[in-house]
């Protein structure tokens, strides 16, 4: 018979190991105080090298021109926009965890919000690279801004989704960074007060803005946090909605559908959650944070994945049904071509990774097996990349005029650029793990009491 220690109406504790606030400070600040491990250096060297490959590829293509890509007259958008949408989508899970779950009062988010928000910022940086290099003349990127100029003034076209996108990404990046920094303030003060006098203490002291824990400040901080969460929630929905409008406002078959905004937002959160899992399953092990990021946290995120996978699957089915029901032969052909045309392998990879594989997470045994969850999260990342590839390339490759049908395959330069963004992403993430508290110290202290009031202890 299984032994039950006490019957309690309280939920199980969020943080394991009966930690006190002092333990929390010590545990989370520890990696910042000591020298990085060999594992960290290996990861950093690899990521940094990969980033340099990307920089080399970008330098070459900016110098030569985007003729170095595999694009042609029919397929004018392919790898670059796929990667842009992929990275932006990854970022959205960070905002979901930091803002939406905060508004929904999900206390477990405190263990993962800091690293998820960092991931958002780094993913948006990676995403931003692609539209800029696709301009061909990235030094003219400031033409996206509506500034008074000597050409008229000729203003930007505010009816264009690409201009909307520019404003959406710029706002998203600024608000995410602000939200992250405001959340960091109390923790930077904690690090400041723990460090010995020296350069680090001065830098952290400068950045902590003189935070001294006054409750008047805490009250305002909580208000600002709530306001930013309230602003970031519609913002994250708007950003991927606008990204989807880049496609949906055109008349290309397979793009011109009203399902795109919800479909893209769900897909974004789905892929981002998978990336959060990929990162924290490694980070909790490498940084000894098992008491803070428990199987319960991983399980909760796995459940969000099941939910969003269902939404994505429903969107795939709806697209097919509507194409069939529309009676529009171009629309019907695009979907037939996706499932049975030359790129059907990409389509079925996407369906397998995004709809079939995540169903394994229904089983508690699978959710508790972190190696398996890690593998599933990688597969979802692959599947979500293919989703964007399928949407973009299959629709463009065969549209209204069969005489201009074409195919597309990426060049080595495009692949190197994409690999380079992974290098950049992991370089930034490893630097973050090394120099900043990866878990929101002050927020975790606030949830220590949850589940502790069970009789004794």
């Amino acid at each position, binding site marked *: 018979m299984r032994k039950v220690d006490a019957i309690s109406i309280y939920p199980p504790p969020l943080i394991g190991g009966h930690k006190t606030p002092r333990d929390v400070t010590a545990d989370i600040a520890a990696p910042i105080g000591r020298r990085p491990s060999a594992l960290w250096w290996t990861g950093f060297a690899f990521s940094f090298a990969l980033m340099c490959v990307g920089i080399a590829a970008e330098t070459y293509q900016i110098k030569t021109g985007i003729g170095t890509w595999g694009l042609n007259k029919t397929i004018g958008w392919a790898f670059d926009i796929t990667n842009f949408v992929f990275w932006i989508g990854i970022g959205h899970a960070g905002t979901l965890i930091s803002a939406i779950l905060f508004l929904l009062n999900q206390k477990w988010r405190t263990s993962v919000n800091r690293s998820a928000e960092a991931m958002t910022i780094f993913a948006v940086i990676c995403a931003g690279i692609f539209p800029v290099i696709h301009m061909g003349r990235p030094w003219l990127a400031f033409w996206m801004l509506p500034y008074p100029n000597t050409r008229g003034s000729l203003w930007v076209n505010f*009816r264009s989704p690409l*201009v*909307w996108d520019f404003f959406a990404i710029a706002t998203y990046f600024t*608000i995410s960074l602000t939200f992250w920094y405001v959340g960091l303030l109390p923790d930077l*003060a904690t690090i400041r007060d723990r460090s010995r006098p020296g350069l680090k203490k001065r830098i952290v002291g400068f950045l902590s803005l003189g935070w*001294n*824990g006054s409750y008047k400040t805490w009250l305002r901080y909580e208000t*600002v946090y709530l306001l930013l969460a309230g602003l970031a929630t519609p913002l994250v929905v708007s950003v991927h909605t606008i990204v989807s409008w880049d496609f949906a406002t055109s008349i290309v078959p397979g793009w011109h559908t009203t399902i795109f905004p919800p479909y893209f937002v769900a897909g974004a959160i789905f892929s981002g959650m998978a990336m959060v899992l990929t990162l924290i399953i490694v980070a909790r092990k490498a940084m000894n944070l098992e008491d803070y990021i428990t199987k319960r946290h991983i399980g909760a995120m796995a459940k969000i994945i099941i939910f969003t996978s269902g939404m994505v699957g429903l969107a795939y089915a709806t697209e097919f049904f509507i194409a069939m029901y529309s009676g529009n032969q171009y629309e019907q052909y695009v979907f037939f071509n996706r499932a049975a045309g030359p790129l059907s392998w990409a389509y079925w990879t996407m369906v397998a990774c995004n709809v079939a594989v995540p169903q394994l997470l229904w089983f508690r045994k699978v959710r508790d097996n972190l190696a398996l969850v890690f593998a599933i999260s990688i597969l979802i990342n692959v599947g979500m990349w293919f989703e964007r590839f399928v949407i973009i390339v299959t629709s463009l490759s065969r549209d209204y005029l069969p005489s201009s049908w074409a195919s597309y395959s990426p060049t080595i330069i495009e692949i190197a650029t994409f690999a380079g963004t992974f290098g950049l992403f992991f370089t930034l993430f490893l630097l973050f793990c090394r120099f900043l508290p990866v878990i929101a110290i002050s927020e975790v*202290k*606030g949830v220590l009491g949850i589940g502790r009031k069970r009789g004794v202890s």
Partner: protein
Amino acid sequence: MNQRYLIGIFEREEDILSATNASRLHGFVISDVYAPYAVHGLDKAIGLSPSRLPWVCFLLGLLGAALKVWFEFWTTGIDWPVNVGGKPWNSLPAFVPVTFEVMVFFAGVSTVIAFLFVSRLWPGARAPLADRGVTDNRFVLILEDTGPAFDQDRAREIFKKSNAVDIEERVETTR
């Protein structure tokens, strides 16, 4: 002039809550409370009124949105109207996305700037700490000595009852 304070240091959130509540109910003037994290209900225990920052957020958001609608209307409809796909000069529905983004930008950034301004937080500001552990695990309650009416024995009793780990008197010289 010298201002005297009585300071109680606590190590558990229940203790700081009960000490603060009791102090306020006895009519002591609470100068401030210092805490390593936001404790649910402590603002009410101190008797702090809600922050007015939501007004900054609302008004600046509204201002940002209004300015943006006007700017989009002026650039596309008045200053240099360009025919894009036969759409009307003043295509208000197409202005919605950018207006929304600019509203969020104004509201968010201005709220944070206002927060830093009213809380006197700026890069490199000095942080006078009430206790070394206040960003780690200690809570500090500071009562103002209001003169002869200040019943110090009663205050010390309240602190002790709430398991204060340390009680001390401090004098701050103000010029």
